[in-house]
């Protein structure tokens, strides 16, 4: 049954009309059970759209079409896949303002951040992996008695469960290498932020992908997500989201068909600021690291560890910069702070703040709701946070910084590594030896030196410990979507020649 449409209004009267269905086999369908999900604008609390929500039978349908599509798709050359990915990149670039509008309305992302950072990164990612599509080659090696070679093959039917914080970009982190490697993909978008997925689906069709190669559905994690995690025909699932959900997915994957899993989970990013850091640069990035998108970033620099010599100056400048935020409608250019993605998330963050206060951490600034119909929360920071406090240990996923002072480099490293997370970290220093030494010692998947949060299509990104495993982006990111087959040819001796 074909689905209905929704109309959204952006700035300057810009209007977008989108279908609200599940994108399966290049068509938009209602959920078979007619199940829907309400999507709210986190800035106003108002209803944005009602969209179809997939349940088990819809997931079965999507996987079924993907499996059929793969039979033909696996015969398509890397060069053709490359061309399709390039086309999709071009279309997203063409419609970047539409995506930015959607992300602002649906996910609370600032319009300019979406357009110039997230959407741009999505396009860069698609182009980067397009260039790999025709280069997934194996190796050849001699063996005694014959010869051997390896093939890098697609896994087949793959799924990606993507989050609500940077929805288009993270979707493309999965889609681009998955498709470049020759797989077919079912994307489950977050039920909080499904609307960009509808637009993306339109462009997938416009770009010319055959039906079933890329299906995009939304639905509740417990229903659609779980169905994918348990599905016997899905051979790989990539998940970006919270630790508890990731754990559940890994269990479901093991219990069903031992599907390959990659998990990009939370983080509690330490930002280490040494005495010899360039102060203005450190303040800029450290502040951005915990206020960008209200700290709703897995790589957020949510623990700020400051060496005693620079501590007072840093705190003063950091506080000033953190408070210099204009909370407003994410669509508007002068807003520098949007809402949290949902009321639930806002309240969770408030809960962490309350806990922090209860645990005896000293509030530096913030801590309160910004009254509105939306989900606005002040930029918040605590100082003198000790390593055993919840503020220092638990991922908050909000604009809440936990700050501690340190004396020595060893102390900083010990504090930074004292975490079950290991996604990303940032170091600020002018001493090159220290930079290399400390980056070596930090137990995180990414370390940035004198900046925070850099994402580049050609560099792998992914965590250690309970931040998950597997990489997005870079050459390693591509390998996650390939299987290696080894072929060995035994050489028989020459037959007798008839002379």
């Amino acid at each position, binding site marked *: 049954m074909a689905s209905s449409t929704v109309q959204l209004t952006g700035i300057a009267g810009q209007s977008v009309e989108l279908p609200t269905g599940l994108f399966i086999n290049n068509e938009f369908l209602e959920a078979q059970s007619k199940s829907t999900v309400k999507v709210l604008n986190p800035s106003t609390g108002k209803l944005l759209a009602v969209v179809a929500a997939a349940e088990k039978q819809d997931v079965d349908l999507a996987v079924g079409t993907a499996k059929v599509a793969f039979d033909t798709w696996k015969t398509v050359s890397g*060069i053709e896949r*490359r061309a399709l990915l*390039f086309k999709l990149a071009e279309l997203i670039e063409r419609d970047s303002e539409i995506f930015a509008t959607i992300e602002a309305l649906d996910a609370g992302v600032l319009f300019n951040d979406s357009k110039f950072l997230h959407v741009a990164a999505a396009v*860069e990612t698609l*182009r*980067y992996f*397009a*260039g*790999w*599509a*025709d*280069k997934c*080659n194996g190796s050849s090696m001699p063996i005694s008695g*014959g*010869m051997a070679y390896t093939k890098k093959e697609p896994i087949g039917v793959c799924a990606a469960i993507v989050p609500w914080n940077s929805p288009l970009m993270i979707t493309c982190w999965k889609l681009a290498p998955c498709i470049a490697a020759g797989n077919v993909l079912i994307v489950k978008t977050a039920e909080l932020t499904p609307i960009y997925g509808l637009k993306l689906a339109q462009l997938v069709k416009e770009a010319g992908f055959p039906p079933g190669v890329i299906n995009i559905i939304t639905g509740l994690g417990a229903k659609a997500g779980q169905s994918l995690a348990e599905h016997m025909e899905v051979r790989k699932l990539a998940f970006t989201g919270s630790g508890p959900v990731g754990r559940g997915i890994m269990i479901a994957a093991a219990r069903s068909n031992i599907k390959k899993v990659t998990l990009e989970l939370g983080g509690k990013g330490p930002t280490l600021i040494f005495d010899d850091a360039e102060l203005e640069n450190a303040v800029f990035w450290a502040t951005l690291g915990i206020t960008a998108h209200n700290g709703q970033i897995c790589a957020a620099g949510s623990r700020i560890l400051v060496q005693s010599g620079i501590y007072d100056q840093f705190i003063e400048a950091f506080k000033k910069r953190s408070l210099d935020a204009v909370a407003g409608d994410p669509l508007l250019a002068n807003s520098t702070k949007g809402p949290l993605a949902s009321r639930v998330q806002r309240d969770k963050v408030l809960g962490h703040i309350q806990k922090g206060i209860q645990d005896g951490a000293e509030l530096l600034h913030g801590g309160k709701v910004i009254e509105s119909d939306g989900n606005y929360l002040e930029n918040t920071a605590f100082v003198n946070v000790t390593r055993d406090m919840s503020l220092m240990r638990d991922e908050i996923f909000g604009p809440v910084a936990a700050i501690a002072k340190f004396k020595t480099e060893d102390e900083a490293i010990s504090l930074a590594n004292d975490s079950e997370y290991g996604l990303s970290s940032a170091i600020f220093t002018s001493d*090159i*030896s220290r930079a*290399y030494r400390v980056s*070596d010692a930090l137990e995180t998947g990414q370390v940035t030196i004198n900046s925070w949060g850099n994402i580049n*299509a*050609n560099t792998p990104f992914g965590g250690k410990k309970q931040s998950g495993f597997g990489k997005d982006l870079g*050459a390693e990111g591509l390998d996650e979507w390939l299987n290696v087959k080894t072929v060995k*040819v035994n*050489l*028989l*001796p*020459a*037959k007798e*020649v*008839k*002379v």
Partner: protein
Amino acid sequence: MAAPTDFQTQLFLNNKYVDAKSKETLSLVNPFNGEPISAAVQVAGQEDIDLAVSYAQVAFKSGPWSTYTGAQRAVYLNKLADLIDANAHKLAALDSLCMGAPIAVAENFVVPQAAVAFRYYAGLADKIEGDSFAAEDGTYRIVRHEPLGVCAGIAPWNVPMIYVGWKIAPALAAGNTAIFKASESSPLATLYLGKLVIEAGFPPGVIQFVNGGGKTGALLASHMGIAKISFTGSTSVGKIVQKLATESNMKKVTLELGGKSAALVFEDANIPNAVAGTADGFLLNSGQMCLATSRLLVQESIATPFIEAVKARFLEAASKLGSDPLSPTTTYGPMANKAQFDRVLSYINIGKEGGALAIGGASNGNNGLFIEPTIFVNPDKNSRIYKEEIFGPVLCILTFKTEEEALELANDTNTGLSAGLYTSDLNRALRVSAKLESGNVAINSLHLPAVNVPFGGWKESGSGQELGRYGFQSYLKMKSVHIK
């Protein structure tokens, strides 16, 4: 179609078409009908080459190109690929006009391959990676891969547009700037590309086209400001290029030279397929291909019918001689220029003296520089026609009894470019291909280079590789950085 008249004859320097300061020109003649094409093709002299190099150096060191990321460079390379495809007919016609390739082949295969190369290498521009090593001894080490600088490419006249892709695309993807010289007898398609370079938006000095013959090539090979030269052409000239490169500034050199490749046909081959590959395949571009298997070695047990079948294909091709290369139904063109025509005929005459001529052996009528598809059977293995590259439609056929004999015959050459092997036995295929002393081996088909696989010759067929990621590496240099 009528001969195209819209073409460029000037040098393309710094995004402008200019006359040569040398004041020298050269003439082009249509090899199909002897008619003059142009007498005004500009020839680059020392001053022109000096200018080109200085523009290319500025573009490399401080121009906008030097600030672009790999992803940004890729955008321009892909754009140029699109423009080459959009102008395929025009470019093919200009190559066809100059050197006589059938336009259908030029337009449907040769020109598109240039675009294929640009797209392939565009995808590598943002994937340049070196190594990093842990500081087990307290020192961190990183290997950076950096572009070379100004890279020159010299191309022959046989499939002119392909070399534009093969030599310029990897150079630019790696971040270099390029100066390219087409053959003096087939410059027109290449020169026309200047317009597309501007349209694609390349900054000035990133891609430049110069013209001229050996003298101009020597200027490039000797130039102190050029970091690398990639030459495709004859072995004898390749040796000169290498010498000049060494004696000037030791610039890096890649050479794709001649071949006298053998195709081995075993008794268990799929015969029609083997005939197609060794007869029709050999006559591609009228035999003017470095990878042509100009020595056909056939197992004795099938030799008689096989040779008859090959002759029949040659006679079939000969029956179509004389047709205008610019006509879309032409399948067989003339020799590319008078010098080559004379060369091939002189080899044929040498061969005739040896008495092994089976068919062909004559030029065709007085309509252009056509030479009949020619076969010598069992020529003397020491004869010049058997040992030396002819680069024309002249095939030498020998027979062999055993696999060992076939290998010995095949490898008895100082070339090693492109061997062919026809058999239905997997074991033989793997065994023999492992023993063939050749940079490329094609099993059960004609060998056509693929952009993602390295192409390079062994022995005196060349040094280094083009194409694939190996080819890409040759446009980068390593810097090891040790950090304590």
